């Protein structure tokens, strides 16, 4: 019990004394997950909009596939990216394995289905009368699509925030493709795993507290957005 208390005390000391190693790890985590999220949004939003608005052969199959991919096991993604980027893999010549770029790729793969599926869901739930309204008011096809996306904006923001929560908490794939190299690819979750293994609970606990805090902020933002969306649709 004492060691846990001591761990917490030491963890708060690390946080309040702005420990350089700690903040380096946090910044890298935010950078990797942030960039992965930008990529996931740029790919997932148009894909979700296409699945929600267009009718094409195989659409239902594509929707089922995206929903299934939402539950992709991170270690499987890690293994897949590892095989692609390893020296003997098809993209091995790029030398990206054990780099932050490899981690961004892995996290993007995990986040794209989440953004796509939740954006699709937000878009299909827009009242069909909105499409008719914009059409009767003289909207072009593009303006009509933008009107629907605008109507689904709260759901779309929720999708992005949810994906951010998922990638920030992810450990399996980035451990495999990043290698957990100190000062280079070591992020919050991989550090927690490593330091716990070593019995060095102070840093692990400090990062755990920050990760929990970030998770709380993400959820609070998500909740606020959903509440705003609900008020607006009442």
């Amino acid at each position, binding site marked *: 019990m004492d060691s846990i208390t001591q761990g917490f005390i030491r963890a708060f000391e690390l946080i309040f004394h702005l420990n350089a190693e700690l903040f380096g790890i946090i910044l890298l985590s935010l950078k990797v997950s942030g960039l992965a999220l930008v990529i996931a949004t740029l790919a997932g939003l148009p894909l979700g909009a296409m699945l929600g608005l267009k009718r094409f052969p195989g659409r239902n199959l594509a929707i089922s596939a995206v929903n299934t991919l939402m539950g992709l096991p991170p270690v499987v993604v890690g293994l897949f990216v590892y095989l692609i980027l390893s020296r003997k893999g098809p993209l091995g010549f790029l030398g990206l394995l054990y780099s932050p770029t490899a981690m961004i790729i892995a996290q993007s793969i995990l986040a794209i289905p989440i953004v796509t599926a939740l954006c699709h869901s937000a878009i299909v739930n827009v009242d069909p*009368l909105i499409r008719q309204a*914009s059409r009767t008011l003289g909207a*072009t096809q593009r303006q009509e699509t933008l009107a629907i996306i605008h109507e689904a904006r709260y759901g779309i923001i929720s999708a992005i925030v949810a994906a951010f929560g998922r990638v920030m908490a992810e450990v399996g794939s980035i451990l495999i493709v990043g290698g957990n190299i100190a000062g280079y690819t070591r992020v919050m979750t991989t550090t927690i795993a490593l330091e716990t293994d070593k019995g060095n609970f102070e840093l692990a606990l400090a990062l755990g507290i920050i990760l929990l805090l970030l998770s709380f902020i993400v959820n609070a933002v998500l909740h606020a957005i959903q509440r705003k969306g609900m008020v607006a649709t009442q």
Partner: protein
Amino acid sequence: MKLDVSHLTKTYDKKTILNDCSYVFDKTGTYVLMGPNGCGKSTFLRICAMLERQDSGDIAYFDNSTVLANDITLKRRLTLVLPRTGVFNTTVFKNVAYGLKIRGLHHTVIERKVNAALDFVGLGPKTGQHARTLSSGETQRLGIARALVLEPEVLFLDEPTASIDEENTQIIESIIGAMKKEGRSTIIMTTHDREQATRVGDFQLVMRNGRIET
């Protein structure tokens, strides 16, 4: 204004809704199309307003004989108000401004026109209110304001008072009367209320067996 409808046919699930339907709208004023529910009035309006495509037949708008399916310039000369108004998740003002905004008008012009349209339908004091907090009668008036702010040459009103109370019905009928006086648009509306047709219509038409009868 001239809208020359010839030999329109439309079928849904093997049920013929419009059957060789023809009519020429060539006068300024209010045309009221009557008929029981399901007789094809709304389908006729939706096709004329280019919201749906007919199976066969032609419509010549104004003085053109050829119509392209996605002729946005032509589409913007017509506006349809549906029986249930789809309200954008924003303020009353922004709802009415939408049609002008997508036409690329300057914001000062938009502000002037929107305020005038909202005053016209009696929603002036509710400009900044969230549109989804309006009553059903006010929502329908919002739909009309959204259409008339665009100053269409032809305004289609599909059962504009079907789902609202008597007070709002009277307000909408007086709005239609005021629009008629201004004489900027030809109004083609549907109703199943014979008395309303007499009150607001200059020309009364009946739809029967998928065709228009005078």
